[in-house]
């Protein structure tokens, strides 16, 4: 196994692991805020959860970007022929 492959695998692992930290914290904060809002105002739960889902999808996209980068490194790496 040559150097580029090793570095690619390392890079993929690092991208996914560190890329998951930020979205995880963000999603935790979002869910906590939504829980707080639902506890204060249970009648708005429908609107809140819909907005929460869309917001979570937005945040989650950041982690998905990291995943896509990792997959590109592993499967479509332009430097390993």
């Amino acid at each position, binding site marked *: 196994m040559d150097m580029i492959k090793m570095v690619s695998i390392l890079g993929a692992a690092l991208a996914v692991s560190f890329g998951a930290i930020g979205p995880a914290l963000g999603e935790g904060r979002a869910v906590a805020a939504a829980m707080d809002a639902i506890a204060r105002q249970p009648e708005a739960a*429908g*609107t809140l959860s*819909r907005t929460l*889902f*869309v917001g979570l*999808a937005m945040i*989650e*996209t950041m982690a*998905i*970007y990291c*995943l*896509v980068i990792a*997959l*590109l490194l592993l*499967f*479509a790496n332009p430097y390993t022929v």
Partner: protein
Amino acid sequence: MNDSPLILQTAFSIGPVPITHVVLTTWAVMAVLAGGCFLLTRKLSVEAGSAQTVLELLVGTIDAQIESTMQRDPAPFRTLIGTLFIFILFANWASAVPNVEPPTAHLETDAALAAIVFAATIFHGIKSNGPLGYLKTFAEPSWVMIPLNLVEQITRTFSLMVRLFGNVMSGVFVVGIVLSLAGLLVPIPLMALDLLTGAVQAYIFAVLATVFIGAAVSGEGAETPRKDTH
């Protein structure tokens, strides 16, 4: 290691045109949906049977979701949003059929779906605000935002595509890896999670399409929400 998720496998070719498994699955899903819709809507009556009641409930739910997101009459958007939701839902759940990969686990299907949403955004924006009015919405709130608004159009379409692809493909991938580690019964909870993710992603795709189209429609000139044109 498994096959790359970025490469398509050809099933057979008709003349010079290669037909991939993804296209086959997509057409199968489309045939099932079109056939089901045809069978269900063939005998609509005022005194609804059980199948028609379920159908009405589904359409009513989609209508209510569109209306509460857009704050306007859902009729012009029902067909597009509803079709997107139901198609993506069934495409994601195609993984429940043995030996079938969901078409949305490949980038091409998602790119096509995101392109449809992109075109529909422009279409509805021009339809409700006029070409000049639609172009003017890019200069909201001030002309400084024009480059950002233009970039946003591209990036949000791209993220729509990558989000669906990443979620569905990672589900398929994880099931594949677990299957190669432990064969019997172990992947079943993951496959159930996969079905849940598929449903949530279909919902999110439809909601985001609604939000994008709603944002394009509700420009400065269209301050007449809820036109009663039933």
